């Protein structure tokens, strides 16, 4: 048995162990679950040290040409502050690091997020009716009616009666159609994963069984 076949067998067995949960909870499933969690944690620790800490921090602090760049001590200290959460007395220090992360994230994203997800979308909705053929104009009208009625559904400052109620009903119908589409896509995604695993079991794993038993090529 070579390493490739061993890998295929391990993958296949762990896959079957995990799918066994669909019948009922069992020790094989528990074993695979714990194996996955433990290996993932170990893998990520090593991966982050190798691919994040060493190239982005350590190698900048101690450049190849020699020397020591003390500026890189600052992010190192902030990183240690994050670990200070472990002890209640020093937990407050982690807020400095978190504050910096949140501050940078908010500052960087505020304008971009608003531009990309609000202004551009509003503009797209308003100007969508202006161009295209008959079908495009119809689609655009559905879009505009859907957006406006969907917003009306979430407008609670006025009772949903009369024209408001009817518009809100259109809004909830449009929302349900959107949720249905999302649900369909979610099913497609989950089935794709099942298909991927099934292809692995049927096309990679099962052909190794006769080889191991010495039957056929």
């Amino acid at each position, binding site marked *: 048995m070579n390493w490739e076949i061993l890998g295929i067998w391990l993958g296949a067995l762990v896959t079957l162990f995990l799918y066994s949960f669909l019948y009922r909870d069992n020790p094989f499933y528990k074993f695979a679950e714990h194996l996955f969690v433990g290996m993932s944690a170990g893998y990520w620790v090593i991966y982050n040290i190798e691919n994040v800490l060493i190239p982005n921090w350590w190698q900048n602090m101690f450049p190849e040409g020699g020397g020591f760049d003390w500026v890189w001590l600052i992010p190192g200290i902030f990183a240690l502050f994050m670990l200070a959460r472990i002890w209640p007395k020093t937990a407050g220090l982690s807020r400095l690091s978190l504050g910096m992360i949140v501050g940078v994230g908010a500052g960087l*994203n505020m304008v971009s997020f608003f531009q990309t997800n609000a202004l551009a979308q509003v503009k797209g909705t308003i100007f969508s009716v202006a161009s295209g053929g008959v079908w495009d104009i119809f689609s655009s009208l559905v879009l505009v009616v859907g957006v406006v009625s969907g917003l009306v559904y979430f407008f609670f400052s006025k009772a949903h009666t009369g024209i408001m109620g009817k518009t809100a009903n259109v809004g909830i119908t449009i929302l349900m159609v959107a949720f249905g589409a999302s649900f369909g896509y979610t099913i497609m995604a989950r089935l794709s994963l099942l298909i991927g695993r099934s*292809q692995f079991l049927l096309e990679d794993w099962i052909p190794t069984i006769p080889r191991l038993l010495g039957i056929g090529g």
Partner: protein
Amino acid sequence: MADIFEKLGNLDRRIIFVLIALAVIIPIIFEIVFPNPVGAEPSRDLFDYVDALPAGSNVLLSFDYDPSTMPELQPMAEALVRHLFEKDLNVVGMALWPQGASLGQDAMSSMADSLGKVQFEDWCNLGYKTGGGVMIVRLGTSMSAVFPTDRDNVPWSEIPMLRGITNLESFSLIISLSAGDPGIIAWVMMAGDRFGVPIGGGCTAVSAPTLYTYLQTGQMVGLLGGLKGAADYETLVGIEGGQAVKGMAPQSVAHIVIMLFIIIGNVAYFTRKKKGGAK
């Protein structure tokens, strides 16, 4: 008749699991392949955009996923890389997800071998860099500052194909194959809207509905959504027997089974409601 639907409504869920498993396994065993016609869809838009790029243009391909979404995104990666190579475009790979760099390397090196493309002249892999959107903004000013070396520690200055590349504006197109965050949205926000670089993408089916909004506004030039998007691209590129096209038969059969159960469940619900047993 009503009793049958009531019994079906109380069906042991494990029977449904078995039927779904059979719906997936049987088409794979018998190698059933359904035709996959591609109409005027976002996948065709992306294909047409790539097809219209002049030879020698630089394309940035970001592999923003990991093995958990390989069944959907790896066939997309392979089909896209093949198309980019066939059009003689310079492909620069990178990743916002750690394991994406290795998956991208697999897709690019295997396709380069079969199409005679040379690493560092026709394609290269810059690897993974942490930071998501923040890092993308930095790429907009200097790429070599973010990636002083490629994935295998080859210095930027020693890679011939990177000589004319300074920042994101050096690229004619950025394609992100994305399984979540950071991914396509970060590229649209930080590269597309900020630096005006055209953005295309491929994503898992779960996130496709969210990303369709960027197509209508023109913030993206095209999108491959889930396994269907991957199958579309394989069809458009002309890949025979691709993994995604092969996957569409079990996908379709399993969808039919699920739709049947949805209908049965609804009929059972309304039958019970009529009898006064359900609210």
